[in-house]
């Protein structure tokens, strides 16, 4: 794989490649308090995911290829694209999770995918930052497909023991502090 260049975006890359782009993904996530992991179901347009995986591997990747080959690529990509940072100050743009300890922690646990004619659903578990027992206050970044679509907008509906919130992650707003909405019962 050829390395990318770290460079500041100083101007427009190009106008939209197609006249009718839909650069969006949606995901539903629920915290499993027993495992302390977010259980995520993420819907992505298959052509977008193929494009980014092809770019990363410099090969022609198709999602209907052998899962033993494709799934690890998605798993590795999600490890970079789906980030959770501990409560506290807003992480900087170069923040990355600490390296796996001993025993190593697999931050993203791949579960599987469903490929349909027009969409692909990715299923995985994401480890909460060390010490966190709730998503409340955790910083979240969801960098899916930003490499290939600068205007990509990723939505995550997250639930934690009856409370929930929807988050929107874009290049312009890369890190979001998770603030759960009050429960139904707590609302007036």
């Amino acid at each position: 794989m050829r390395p990318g260049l770290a460079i500041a975006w100083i101007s427009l890359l190009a106008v939209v490649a197609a006249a009718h782009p839909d650069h969006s993904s949606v995901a539903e996530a629920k915290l499993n308090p027993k495992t302390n992991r977010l259980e995520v179901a993420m819907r992505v347009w298959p052509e977008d995911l193929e494009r980014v995986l092809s770019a990363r591997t410099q090969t022609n990747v198709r999602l209907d290829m052998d899962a033993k080959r494709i799934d690890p690529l998605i798993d590795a990509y999600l490890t970079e694209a789906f980030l959770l940072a501990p409560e506290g100050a807003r992480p900087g743009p170069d923040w990355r999770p600490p390296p796996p300890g001993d025993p190593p922690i697999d931050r993203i646990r791949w579960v599987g995918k469903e490929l349909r004619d027009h969409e692909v659903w990715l299923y995985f578990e994401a480890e909460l930052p060390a010490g966190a027992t709730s998503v409340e206050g955790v910083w979240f970044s969801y960098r899916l497909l930003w490499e290939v679509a600068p205007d990509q907008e990723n939505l995550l509906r997250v639930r934690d023991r009856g409370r929930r919130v929807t988050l929107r992650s874009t290049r312009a707003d890369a890190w979001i502090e998770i603030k759960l909405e009050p429960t139904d019962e707590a609302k007036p």
Partner: protein
Amino acid sequence: MPIRGLAVASLAAALFVAPAVPQAAAQSTPAPAEKFSQDDKFRQLDELLPTPNDYRTASGAPGHEYWQQRADYDIDVELNDETRIVNGSQTVTYYNQSPDTLRYLWVQLDRNNFTPNSHAQLTQTRDELEKMSFRTLRRHVARETFDGGMKIDRVETPTGDELDHTIVHTMMRVDLPEPLAPGARFAFKIAWRFEMNDTRVLNSRTSSEFFEEDGNYIHQVAHWFPRMAAYTDYAGWQHKQFLGRGEFTLEFGDYDVRITVPDDHIVSATGVLANPGDVLTSEQRRRLREAETASTPMFIVTPEEAKDNERTQPGGKATWRFQAENVRDFAFATSRKFIWDAMGYDLSDRGGELVMAMSFYPNEAEPLWSTYSTHAVVHTLDVVSDFAFVYPYPTAQSVNGPTGGMEYPMICFNGPRPEDDGTYTARSKYGLISVIIHEVIHFYFPMVVNSDERQWTWMDEGITTFLQYLTEQEWEDDYPSRRGEPKDITVYMSSPNQVPIMTNSESILQFGPNAYAKPATALNVLRETVLGRELFDHALREYARRWQFKRPEPADKFRTFEDASGVDLDWFWRGWYYTTDHVDVSVDNVRKFTIDSQNPDTEKAWRRTRRDAEPATLGERRNADLPKRTHAYPALLDFYNDYDELDVTPGDLREFQEYLDGLDDEDRALYEVDRNFYLIELGNRGGLVTPVILALHFEPGPSEELRIPAEIWRRDNERVSKLYSTERELVGVTFDPHLETADVEVENNHWPRRIVESRFELYKWKRDTPNPMREAKEELERDNVSSASDTGGED
């Protein structure tokens, strides 16, 4: 008649219990309701919509003084296949049909979006350092130097007198030598040129795609000539610069366009080819005639002929002449790589004419395109001519090239292709069919129902995406549509950083969901849940009929749907189009009431049962065995130790008989009905008011469905209670059982509360569930292997 358990005195009172709210504020002022903590979500839209006038009526129809401008174009254009330089000269005849005198005309130069210092380029923002691939970097640098802007060589009268003109970014003001009076017309000429953008530098709605293998281009040429800016009754001159997203606001007119290209090219363009004898072979013309009555698409240029063309060198130039009447734009595509198929679609039995449905594509698009493209075009004309109006133009064309999907009058550009080896996935197939359906629907909206795209992306994209869903669903069973179902938009609807649908095209956040999916879903909800199919379809048809070849504004659409359906929909437009509220209704509680018969035998027995069912407190239980003084001194017991207030007394019976005797026959009949009354308490968590669709589950079944109009929320849009009476026992209530309202939170839709498994949990369950078919298959394979080894293996 009292209701047991209610403090109120009568059933009638209970039925109409509602929170005490003040009258809504006067409609003429938007004053906040300071003594009531809720917005009035049913407030009429009077403060938001423009005042009706002679041009646009309060019913949403064009008024009796409606007018719009007109511009006819006579254009000569030549495209150099090697340099990609496009040279043109045109005569525009502008008809001032407005009541105003004009001293200047504004012309749009949308190509200027492709200059290095365009406003689109300069105003683009980025926020973070990012990784960039070499390919992306190369394109980025090239983009900063590539100038694809429109060079204006001359602006002059037909007799050659120069006209003063001023270029303002993507627009140009042409000063008139004399003021142009209402009803007058003015002709002028413009000579211009520009360089087509190569997809390797800049891929856009209009691009040239180079094929390394054979050294040929496909050129898709759009917003390529100076077009008249719109002058309207609601905005005067359209003066929003082209920044890339807000598309086009254009005038209707007739076109006569002569396109000069290498003589081995095939050209597809808006309108009808006027000189086939000059540019087509006699065999191609014969095939075209045959295709007019063909039942399946026929090749005009076969794949083999296109392949041969790829290897030829042009012998010179050829000029293709196209004519189009009453269109708002003109686009074309040209290449020597094009295969061409066609099929006539006769709409004469529906009041239309013969339409030539045609597709143009390279061999790289095969076999997908010859199988599906023209069929998708015809299918769309068939379906949408019912939903809107009969297709009014003589051709409908689909062209493969670098553009993902883009529409112009009678011609659209569509991108999907199969793999290099000719195989294709189901996704490629449905992606192609869907994009063609979408773009062909644009031949109606906005190419005929000429909404203002520069202002409102949603006006054509919403209705097109909605009709795309309907058209797809008529293609085959279970067609995998991406947009349309309300359940597919719930995450977006609950997301932060949203803007309302009523947002200018350039300021939209979450563009696809906001301008395509949400307005399409809104129309779906309006059709299926609010109005019903018959009323909705009538209203949609009326909107399309009223505004074909005219320019509707949002208010015209809102008003027409109400006018044609007979239903006040202001709450719907307000909620879905002017706010970012979402639907989230919670079934908070269900309370049961039964009729108090006043019969002391039954009522006191019922109360005794209730009393006896009360659990003893811990103290009562421990005190029960204590020795009591009355045990030792029974004489202390008297009347009250045996008295039970729930014993039936002769007085009770006498009083009950008097009650019965006082009932007239009608009340007596009602009294004898044995019914349960349930008060279903609903909370509106998301803010968007919605019809209330309830599934009522009984023991024993079956379930019933209760469909209540959204007006249930008209006095209190946060909490309402619905009284429901039945002879059966209600055991559960579900809001939105068919997922038709776009409710974002299904967990609170159930009473009693139900654990709703997440998609993740369902997937794991499904994945981990044994697959009986697979197991049977594996068993069979084991048996086969076993029997094969028994017989010594294969021959």
